[in-house]
């Protein structure tokens, strides 16, 4: 049986149609999200966002203030040991973008610390790739 056939695409010929901002912040369409999300996070302007990735590791570095919202307190309790933003989103049951907003406030208040993800660069870091390879080989 002959399988169906695909035609190759080229990055130069067809650039991705969606804009690709540097971080998860500031994407178009977020302003159209339900207002309650902003109420939840306390961010009303919809403006400044911290550059937070799904795999940014978050660690709590201070106790919640008495004024902290239940979501902020829950997040601070959760991150007593390092946890990725994706895991925080999963455990709190909140969308990624809402967690990003929560974290923006907590980072500004220096209640949490963010450990930046290692991103793929134009020239891949070979020692990083080797570390991942060796880690997988031990699995």
């Amino acid at each position, binding site marked *: 049986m002959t*399988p169906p056939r*695909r*035609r*190759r695409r080229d990055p130069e010929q067809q650039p991705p149609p969606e804009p690709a901002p540097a971080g998860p912040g500031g994407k178009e369409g977020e302003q*159209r999200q339900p207002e309650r999300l902003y109420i939840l996070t306390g961010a009303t302007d919809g403006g400044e966002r911290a550059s937070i990735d799904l*795999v940014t*590791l978050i660690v709590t570095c201070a106790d919640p203030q008495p004024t902290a919202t239940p979501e902020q307190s829950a997040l601070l309790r959760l991150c007593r040991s*390092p946890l990725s933003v994706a895991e925080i989103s999963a455990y709190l049951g909140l*969308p990624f973008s809402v967690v990003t907003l929560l974290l923006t406030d907590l980072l500004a208040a220096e209640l949490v610390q963010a450990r930046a993800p290692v991103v793929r660069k134009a020239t891949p870091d070979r020692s*990083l790739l080797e570390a991942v390879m060796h880690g997988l080989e031990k699995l």
Partner: protein
Amino acid sequence: MDWKSSDPVVPGPRTEEHLPHTARAAVKIVIVGGFGVGKTTMVGSVSEIRPLTTEETMTQAGIGVDDNFGSDSKTATTVAMDFGRISITEQLVLYLFGTPGQERFWFLWNGLFEGALGAVVLLDTRRLEVSFDVIGRLEERGVPFVVAVNSFPGAPRHPMRELRAALDLSDEIPIVECDARRRASGRDVLLTLMRFLHSPATARAPL
């Protein structure tokens, strides 16, 4: 979703699932493929934690589908994504993302592919064509990927040469067979991707 929940008990990682305080950095790999090809299965088989689900809310206006001509209503769509984790060293953590559902949404998920080491395209030879769009989108974005054929019982087995031609893949892109249910097999697929990324040809390729 119940935003206003006042339940003080928030589920969290089990004791054995805590990352060490030395964890400093994380990398990610995305597992893509058509519906039902075993992406979640593969994430679950290699993950050291119970697979978790994160989600993102997107508006219909943002996904290029608009059936509501002349209407102001924007429908919010929730896109869910399963993920797992592998501790590489005391400092370095690998996250694996695999998503159920409609693939056209993932590419709008801000930051999912940005900074990812690469992707695994999981295939079911009974429905090769469901992966065509995904492979094309990875090519457009310049995300390096390998192809893994999930060996379902009774699925047609094409010679690799024929499969490569059908997928219109260049010779350097690895195609491997796997059993997404088996941890060792899933790990070998990830290793194939890492070796591909490490190869001089890929290292030279532009983003």
